[in-house]
């Protein structure tokens, strides 16, 4: 990368450290942090959307829709989520390939036969011949969908609770003013529910951050993958030989997560103060008292 790093075996000390940390593999490692942040940036709004829909469905007056919403919410209770992660990734993958096989394969045989899942070569997602970049992107896409489904259920639970927590008198008053059900929902319920949902959502955000190493289990080359790769001991055959440094790489990851979660905590504390303004909660009351 840098001219000074052309011959790694001849350099020492700080230069060696600098060259080592800017080697091609390390740059990939730094990019994988961006992958993690991208996952968070995509998953958080997606899960929020799924959760909002789930909670709204659970409150629906049409029984089948309300059941669907409730099943979605209770799905995550009692079962470890890692099982959902392992399950959804395979299930989504096979489902996609089955749908594609209906379109592109002739014959259309039922793919789940005995011990094998078999679709024709053209129906593979991504195609066997695709570049590894596509495989990585596909893995990442599956991870995003899986995270959104699982975390959507958690969010739905929080938002459902928050909607129930909005004082009933407020909704009745709105109805007495002649608002339709949709208007009550849009103008009264949704704006007020956020303050009740915020602590739960903040908690979920922390948990989402801490769930990102699961990307590794889903086969994406994430920070855990690179920490293991780069940290493993390297013999003289490598450009930068060193002993087993995985411990230090994982310590680095630990610090990354600690900084990230504690920063988030502070942001949420601020946000909560903001949202409590003028609300009929103890937090809002305390603020009014302090101002007076």
């Amino acid at each position: 990368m840098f001219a000074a790093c052309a011959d790694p075996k001849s350099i020492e000390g700080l230069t060696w450290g600098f060259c080592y940390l800017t080697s091609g593999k390390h740059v990939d490692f730094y990019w994988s942090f961006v992958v993690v942040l991208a996952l968070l940036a995509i998953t958080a709004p997606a899960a929020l959307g799924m959760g909002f829909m789930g909670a709204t469905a659970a409150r629906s007056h049409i029984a089948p829709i309300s059941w669907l919403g409730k099943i979605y919410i209770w799905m995550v209770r009692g079962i470890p989520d890692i099982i959902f992660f392992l399950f959804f990734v395979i299930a989504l993958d096979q489902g996609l390939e089955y749908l594609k096989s209906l379109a592109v394969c002739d014959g259309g045989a039922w793919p789940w036969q005995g011990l094998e899942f078999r679709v024709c070569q053209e129906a593979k997602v991504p195609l066997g011949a695709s570049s590894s970049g596509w495989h990585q992107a596909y893995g990442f896409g599956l991870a995003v969908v899986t995270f959104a489904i699982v975390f959507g259920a958690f969010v739905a639970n929080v938002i459902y609770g928050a909607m129930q927590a909005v004082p009933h008198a407020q909704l009745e008053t709105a109805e007495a003013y002649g608002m339709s059900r949709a208007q009550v929902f849009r103008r009264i319920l949704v704006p007020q529910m956020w303050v009740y949902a915020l602590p739960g959502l903040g908690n979920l955000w922390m948990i989402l951050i801490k769930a990102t190493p699961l990307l590794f289990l889903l086969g994406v080359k994430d920070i855990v993958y690179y920490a293991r790769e780069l940290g493993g001991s390297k013999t003289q055959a490598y450009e930068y030989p060193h002993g087993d440094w995985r411990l230090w790489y994982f310590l680095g990851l630990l610090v990354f997560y600690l900084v990230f979660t504690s920063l988030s905590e502070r942001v949420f504390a601020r946000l909560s103060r903001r949202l409590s303004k003028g609300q009929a909660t103890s937090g809002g009351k305390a603020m009014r008292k302090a101002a007076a």
Partner: protein
Amino acid sequence: MSMTCWETVQAYAFRSIGIGENLLPKSDFTLCQQFTLIGSGMIWNLYFGVLALTFGFFLANAVALAKNARNPLVRKPAEWFVFVFRGSPLFIQFFLAYEALILLPKFPGIEATLVAVFPVEVIISIDIGSGWQTRAWAGALLVLFLNTSAYAAEIFHGALKSIPKGDLEAAEAYGLTGWKRFIRIEWPTMLRLGWPGYTNEAIFLFHATTLVYFSGFPAFSQKGDALYYANYFADKTFNPFVPYPIVGFYFICLTLLVTTIYGAVNKRLNRHLPSNQRQKIRLRPNLIR
């Protein structure tokens, strides 16, 4: 060679701890095999969960009290302990512990001190033969123990802070101070207030045990936990729709069992209160650490 279901149970019920038939089924998987082997793997989930919770309860109490201390020399370490274990993914903690346990033999001095300090010296048992296994199992257990201690300490610390002031004043009026006040009033009240949260933590911890074999601690000679066998079947049959729901089923049963036991304790902790003031256990959805 086909076995009846009862024969399968006899052969594989304790496979995860190395008793019974050694060879895992390779083809013609039956539902019975899946149920038996995954159930056998649950032994490990129970082992990790029960031991971590039992030891963790004591450490959590100690840390909660330390976090409440006025002396910063006591308070700060407790705060950091809770921050580190609650602020980072359990997954990373597992990896770190695993690497640390691998590196440890290279520093005989540290190893000897650790053996002397910790009563759980199995962790660092140096015999090469079975050493690796005990190391992995005890290492994972150590992480789960510290992790649950941190989470539970936070719950108990919150409970300690929310003890009604009137209770403490009443205790003082009765002449109870210091240690007596703590053991008769503060501690039971803390447990009572924190118990519903602690119940959720216990369920949560059992769920976290599924991460053990996915986090560097390898399963030796195919002795793994429930998820390990579920993964084995899913890999072999290309069909996730059977083994994972089976794990789910076992965990729902386990969750019900934990709720029953902790509910009984909760009832005892609340026995002196009128029924409308009792703390109720509310199951909250369980989340990833």
